[in-house]
């Protein structure tokens, strides 16, 4: 069968099943058939993974694929190709397209384009409110039926507390669907383009107050107390925000959060030359914030690592810092960046890292992925943790090159990205 595959002799890390050993992985008919060492697999295609790591396919629950509307920046096809090159077998596209994904037909469109691209699984979230305007609830139920894995107005934050309260209440009737928030209180954020503080002062750029993030996280968590709806904080960037999330988790509230590579690796200091590749929202913060995020990763407070892959045209990023759009395109090097941020300095071990990129994000969006449990779709990522390479944005499959890591020396090379037993990317 075309979708039968035996991956031999790799170090298999399957955190959900507590597997961390050298073993073989068998995929039959596109689904996992077992992890062990005595498979009789005559005639099955074999990948020798000796010396390499074999994990459930990596999942990124926060990417922007720009289609429909901004296809010159990214399409679902180009984004999908970028995803598998980055080792990701499942991604969640954000609904802030033009028009936004705020109805079932749009959700189906995303799925259709993803099927045609035939690279990675592309899931999508639906908008919380119609047209992402923050006023009227969108058709959450119909989008849910069409396959939306959660709701967010990402790019914008639902400002009106009553609307957010209503969204959380309404979503609770679907039981297990997550409502996600880009946490940014608009009046405090103002027209800020970077973290508010000493750096913004000496650069003469309008600052984005960290309280804008913390205040919305706090507000939403109060609302979650009433509804018990699963609530997810996107790209948390501040020590204060993490503290609030930590307390909510200690109270047993259904709150999760994600952290991006840039908030783990870069600080506001990077903006010193007005390089717009460092313009991102939430903005790059400080060393203290990075330390708080890493501590939270170590303590298990951070549930998922997510790239917030945000492709933009070079011509847009060549504008003045005030005028350039927010965003960093990092899908194709994100995995190596997490290694740099978390494994190399010894913040966490490999099973913890892989869990934050497989079973834990799968749990947030409630998909049956992220493990090698028999019967689960046979998505696998094979990488060599010791191979060093230079990030070269010119080689990206993404349509965009707005990547501040261009030229960085990183470690951890994706060798194979396998979706349902089929090799969708190989480094050779």
């Amino acid at each position, binding site marked *: 069968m075309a979708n039968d595959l035996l991956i031999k002799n790799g170090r298999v890390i399957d955190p959900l099943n507590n597997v961390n050993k050298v073993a073989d992985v068998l995929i039959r008919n596109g689904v996992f058939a077992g992890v062990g060492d005595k498979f009789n697999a005559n005639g099955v295609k074999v990948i020798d993974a000796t010396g390499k790591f074999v994990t459930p396919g990596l999942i990124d629950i926060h990417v922007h694929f720009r289609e429909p509307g901004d296809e010159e920046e990214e399409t679902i096809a180009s984004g999908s190709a970028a995803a598998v090159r980055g080792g990701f077998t499942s991604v969640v596209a954000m609904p802030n397209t033009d028009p936004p994904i705020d109805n079932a037909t749009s959700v189906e469109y995303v799925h259709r384009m993803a099927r045609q691209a035939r690279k990675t699984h592309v899931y999508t979230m639906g908008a919380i409110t119609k047209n992402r305007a923050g006023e009227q609830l969108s058709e959450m139920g119909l989008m849910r039926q069409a396959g939306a894995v959660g709701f967010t107005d990402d790019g914008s934050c639902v400002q009106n507390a009553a609307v957010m309260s209503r969204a959380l209440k309404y979503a609770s009737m679907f039981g297990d669907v997550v409502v996600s928030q880009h946490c940014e209180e608009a009046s405090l954020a*103002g027209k800020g383009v970077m973290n*508010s*503080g*000493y750096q*913004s*002062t*000496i*650069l*003469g*750029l309008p*600052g984005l*107050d960290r309280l804008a993030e913390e205040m919305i996280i706090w507000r939403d968590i109060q609302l979650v107390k009433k509804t018990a709806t699963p609530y997810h904080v996107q790209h948390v960037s501040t020590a204060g925000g993490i503290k609030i999330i930590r307390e909510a988790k200690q109270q047993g509230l259904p709150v999760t959060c994600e952290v991006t590579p840039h908030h783990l690796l870069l600080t506001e200091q990077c903006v010193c*030359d*007005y390089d717009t590749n460092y313009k991102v929202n939430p903005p790059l913060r400080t060393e203290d914030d990075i330390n708080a995020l890493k501590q939270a990763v170590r303590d298990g407070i951070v549930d998922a690592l997510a790239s917030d892959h945000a492709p933009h045209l070079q*011509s847009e990023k*060549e*504008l*003045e*810092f*005030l*005028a350039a759009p927010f965003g960093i395109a990092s899908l194709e090097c994100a995995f190596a960046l997490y290694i740099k941020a978390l494994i190399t300095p010894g913040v966490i071990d490999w099973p913890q890292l892989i869990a934050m990129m497989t079973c834990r994000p799968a749990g947030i969006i409630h998909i049956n992925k992220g493990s090698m449990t028999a019967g689960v779709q046979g998505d696998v990522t094979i990488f060599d943790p010791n191979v060093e390479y230079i990030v070269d944005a010119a080689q990206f499959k993404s349509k965009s090159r707005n990547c501040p890591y261009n030229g960085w020396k990183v470690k951890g090379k994706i060798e194979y990205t396998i979706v349902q037993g089929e090799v969708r990317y190989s480094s050779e």
Partner: protein
Amino acid sequence: MKTADKTNFQWTHKHLLGLKDLSAQEIEFILDTAKGFEQISTRSIKKAPPLRGKVVVNLFFEDSTRTRTSFSLAANRLSADVVEFTMKTSSVSKGETLLDTARNLEAMGIDIVVIRHNAGGAPKLLSRSISACVVNAGDGYNEHPTQALLDCYTIRKQLGTLKGKKIAIVGDIAHSRVARSNIWAMTKLGAEVTLVGPPTLMPSAVDKLPVKISYSLDDIIGELDAINMLRIQFERMANNPFPSVREYSHYFGLTVDRMKKARPDMLVMHPGPINRGLEMESEVADGPNSVILDQVTNGIAVRMAVLYLVSQANQIVGQVKS
């Protein structure tokens, strides 16, 4: 007073983007160079040849009268050809990006771009992308280096030095590029700078700047050698940082009454244009302590020095140093 030894000192910057990254010696060197140019403006033939054959473009994306005129005169007196390029709208709304505009100008063979722009960092962006010299004539609320240079020049001329002098900068610090450039230049030259204004007009993390902060002009005015009154920029006041003009003037206006608490020889400065009766009463602006018009005069010599130095650096160092 000269601390820079001209025989050993080599100016190496082909751009003047700000004063934050310049050394005290470099700032002194500009001021010394300006002193040499000052007398050209008083001759009957107000011209010298150093920039003959060079083209200077005034690329102004914001309204400006004195700065643009001052740069034009400075360039003219050095025998450069001057082109005015004024766009009231931002590059984005115009449909052509800043870089495209600059590349087009460069294709026409310009040597020095003097840029004013509403976005902090725009001159830096330009300097990375074109080979002409870039001189910042004010970018957003980042820096306005030639204004601070002429402020320092004026103080130095009046008081001999900035070292140990007590200087207050009063008003809208948060949105002021003049304040930022002044802070860098004056503190590097040894002055003790105090920022004065309501907390709502102070930038974030202001305590990390190398300055003192005061919310009371009355408390400190008696100690000052010079006071630099910033213009209240209503166009940047969308969020209403103080309740009324009357209340602002009550606490921070430089009135005749308040001048009685000042030392009799305190220099009164203002980058212009003045909102008479708001940050300063007319009697003070036109009074014996005022050096406001000296600032304007000195601005030409300072800008001549800047244009001359960046142009020389471009010739000597070529593309190596920027």
